[in-house]
């Protein structure tokens, strides 16, 4: 074996830099890896928020972070889903954590498709425990932490700055060495990064570089190769706004994602404020117009600072030579469906499983890039499904959003679901079939015809089972504490 990878330098900022450093330190520190962080100036404001799907809990466990401590430190709330409003169909909640339910050996979506076709007035979300609990402002997590037998796992709203402070502390405590700095110059040989010169002239060398600098991609953007692939033809929003509003009373157990003529605006409740995030198209409304419209759109006054930055969805090959881009440096997506931290998580778990064995040759790069590209395409398609199914007719932004030539995988998914209400799982999926079913039905893609197997179940049996399921869910929801009672005090 040739020389092993020992010196790992992570350059970047905010959650990506510290999650990366901590993950590599925890996984490979005992095997001899030395992790050093060059922390670039933060781009976060007091208004920023991280909304995360429940997989973040798994990452926290791997990183040795205590759930209650994370929620406590980061103004955090354990939430269960996202409520979509004004996308054209009736409002609905997408509950993050879903379990496949079968009745009489038939997937529940099939039964419900038939029942709704025959006039059952109960909305689909009522059959999803996470969505049903969210609707009633309940969440299984108490202030003291997660109960062991919780029936549904939770997503997170975290104050971004406070969360980053917590991660920084944990990384340093775990043995990561760190300094503040910024990149002046990158020296390369072929596809490899030889060294990075910082603005104060320190020259940083490493066996492996991790670029966690966000969309700036200070190392990865200069790498040879195909470069950044733009997804602008699918995602029309090019501006991302963050701001704050007063805290909601009582605290809801979900984020609300409301469409408006130029894009969407998300309300993410935190313990003592509400984070407001909007993605929109500057061709439809200017920054100033959106800022002015927000109080009307959200019903809340804005407080504190508000910033708007450029948004450009797309991705680049994450691993080139000896440099791996993680998070926003590799993939840029809208902060919809609470996937921001999940994209970092995907990069890190794939990196840990393919951590390079030697300095001179890293054939892992191709496999890593293929895995990430495949995962990310599925996440992207999930976001895209919201857009293409919108029914805001007569608004240029939304009319365009329905029009594009779809990626093949999404087209096939929509066709199969539209025909039969089925979602076939491919490789590298972040969202489960039930997540897809919730948003597709929520946005109004109703299957034409359920599985013929449903015909063979007597109507009385179907009604009884559907009611039984509703009763069970209602009982489980009642057993959960009200989110506001646990986290809203003070």
């Amino acid at each position, binding site marked *: 074996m040739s020389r092993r990878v020992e010196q790992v330098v992570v350059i970047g900022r905010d959650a990506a830099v510290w999650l990366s450093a901590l993950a590599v330190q925890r996984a*490979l520190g005992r*095997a001899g890896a030395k992790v050093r962080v060059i922390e670039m100036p933060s781009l976060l404001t007091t208004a920023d928020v991280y909304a995360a799907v429940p997989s973040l809990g798994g990452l926290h466990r791997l990183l040795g972070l205590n759930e209650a401590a994370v929620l406590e430190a980061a103004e955090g709330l354990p939430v269960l889903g996202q409520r979509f409003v004004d996308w054209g169909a009736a409002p609905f909640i997408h509950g993050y954590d879903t379990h496949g339910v079968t009745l009489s050996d038939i997937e529940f979506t099939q039964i419900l498709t*038939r029942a709704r076709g*025959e006039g059952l007035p109960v909305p689909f979300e009522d059959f999803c425990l996470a969505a049903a609990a969210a609707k009633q402002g309940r969440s299984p997590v108490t202030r003291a932490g997660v109960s062991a037998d919780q029936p549904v796992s939770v997503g997170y709203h975290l104050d971004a700055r406070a969360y980053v402070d917590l991660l920084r502390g944990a990384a340093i405590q775990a043995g990561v060495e760190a300094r503040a700095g910024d990149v002046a110059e990158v020296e390369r040989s072929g596809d490899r990064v030889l060294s990075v010169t910082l603005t104060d002239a320190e020259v940083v060398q490493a066996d492996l570089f991790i670029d966690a600098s966000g969309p700036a991609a200070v190392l990865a953007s200069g790498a040879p190769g195909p470069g950044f692939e733009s997804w602008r033809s699918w995602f029309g929003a090019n501006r991302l706004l963050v701001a704050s509003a007063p805290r909601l009373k009582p605290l809801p157990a979900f984020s609300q994602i409301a469409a408006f003529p130029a894009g969407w605006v998300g309300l993410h409740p935190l313990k003592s404020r509400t984070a407001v995030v909007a993605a929109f198209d500057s061709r439809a409304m200017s920054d100033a117009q959106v800022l002015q419209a927000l109080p009307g759109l959200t019903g809340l006054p804005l407080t504190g600072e508000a910033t708007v930055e450029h948004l450009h969805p797309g991705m680049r090959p994450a691993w080139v030579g000896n440099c791996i881009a993680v998070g926003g440096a590799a993939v840029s997506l809208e902060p919809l469906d609470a996937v921001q931290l999940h994209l970092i998580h995907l990069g890190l778990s794939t990196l840990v*499983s393919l951590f390079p064995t030697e300095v001179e*040759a890293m054939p892992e790069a191709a*496999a890593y890039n293929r895995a990430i590209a495949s995962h990310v395409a599925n996440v992207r398609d999930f976001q895209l499904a919201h857009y293409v199914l919108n029914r805001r007719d007569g608004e240029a932004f939304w009319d365009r959003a329905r029009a594009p030539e779809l990626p093949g995988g999404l087209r096939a998914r929509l066709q199969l679901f539209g*025909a039969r209400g089925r979602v076939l799982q491919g490789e590298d999926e972040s969202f489960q079939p039930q997540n897809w079913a919730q948003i597709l039905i929520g946005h109004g893609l109703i299957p034409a015809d359920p599985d013929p*197997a449903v015909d063979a179940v007597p109507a009385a049996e179907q009604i009884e089972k559907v009611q039984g399921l509703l009763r069970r869910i209602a009982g489980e929801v009642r057993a959960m504490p009200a989110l506001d009672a646990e986290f809203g005090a003070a």
Partner: protein
Amino acid sequence: MRVNKPLEVVIVGGGTAGWMSAAGLLGGLKPGLVRVRLVESDDIGTVGVGEATLPHMRTFNERIGIDEADMMRATNATFKLGIEFRDWGFRGSSYVHPFGVHGHPIGGVGFQHQWTRARLAGQAADIGDYAYAIVASRRNRFEFPSKDLSAINSTYDHAYHFDAGLYARYLRGWCEARGLTRTEGKVREVRLAPETGDVAAIVLESGDVIGGDLFIDCSGFRGLIIGGALNGPFEDWTRWLPCDRALAVPTERSEDFTPFTRSTALEAGWQWRIPLQHRTGNGYVYSSSFISDDEAVTRLMGNLDGAPLAEPKPIRFRSGRRTASWTKNCIAVGLASGFLEPLESTSIYLTQVAVLTLLDLLPRPKVDPALAAAFNRVVDNEYDRVRDFLILHYHANSRDDAELWRHCREMTVPDSLREKMELFVHRGHIAQYRNGLFSPPSWLSVFVGQGMVPTGYHPMADSTPLEAVTAEMEGLRRKISDRVDAMPTHADFVRGYCKGEAPLKAAGGQA
């Protein structure tokens, strides 16, 4: 409840594929959804090479409600723990691809990483010594795996060897007992609906016209409907899998009653050996570019471990698959949908996948093309995965005694396979996928068995001291060996569980 007319399904062709399709539709669906009719001719022989199965077959049996011991008795079946490959990587080599795992993760990394690390330090035994199914195979032992998942003898799985002709007959009886209509006859013509191009009916030589909503083409290699009437294209994989012929010959049951299939690489292909209760199935799969038919017969007949019970039966094939197994209202199942040589016993598995996927995506009388597209995605993926795994056996060899092996070593393999091999050699990495065969233990056994050993391993392996790792590995090796010694022999177990027909004797042979 809405009352719909049942789907009228016409299965064309008996054999394993036809009867598995029929049994799946009858046993795997709620009553009243389909009406199944099967057309076959006793004059048309079936191929019936697929006498060895994969553990997945148990899922199929459970889904449709077939009793294992009953089926095994009726088909003179035996148990299978894996496949032994002789002379594949190089002359004189032998390894087993087991239905089970090698060791268990140690220190947060897969077993193969620690094994490689210990091996590089000169402290590892053969990788097969850490796999329960392999050790049991080597000693001709069998019993069912323990249900206690912490027990060492829970770390394997089992499949069957059976007489495919008897299996088709068994399923026929099972289906007829459940109301299936079987029609004896040969198909003279396939009628298409002029406006849609769908299959409207088949016409038999008797003049009978049989219409239906959905036609399942189980007519074997020729693909009577899918390839004939619908003229569906076929993707040819001969450039990677050069074998195109086979000879099959049964022999008397051997004393060596193995709980595994044996595959022995020969100069122009490979020979199979499948132990059944009443006989042993044998055959030579070869490439006509590298050996003549006569030479192949001589080679096979001179390399048997029992007296032959019949003349060798020739079979011709072409490796590859239909571009669209489900086209219009016709689904090709079995050999009509594609062919991959039985090197990894995948024929019946691929049929099973097609049948279960059909149950899962059962159409209405007017077939929605979205269902066909989804079905084809599932089936294509399965074929492609198996293809890569088969190519690996041919490609990773260091035999220098025959042209076929030099050819295969030098051929360009699909990128998907090349990348897998590269990462395995570089660091023992094996990707796990959600859909399709094979799982990492299968890849591991074949990589290492064919002579590809990792030169590196996952760096996390070094987090655990080497002495602790080698001590754990040695403990595991002993535990497996001791527990296997307590198992009954395969012959005893079969006799007690599912005794079938008495062994056949060759004409003129002495009992």
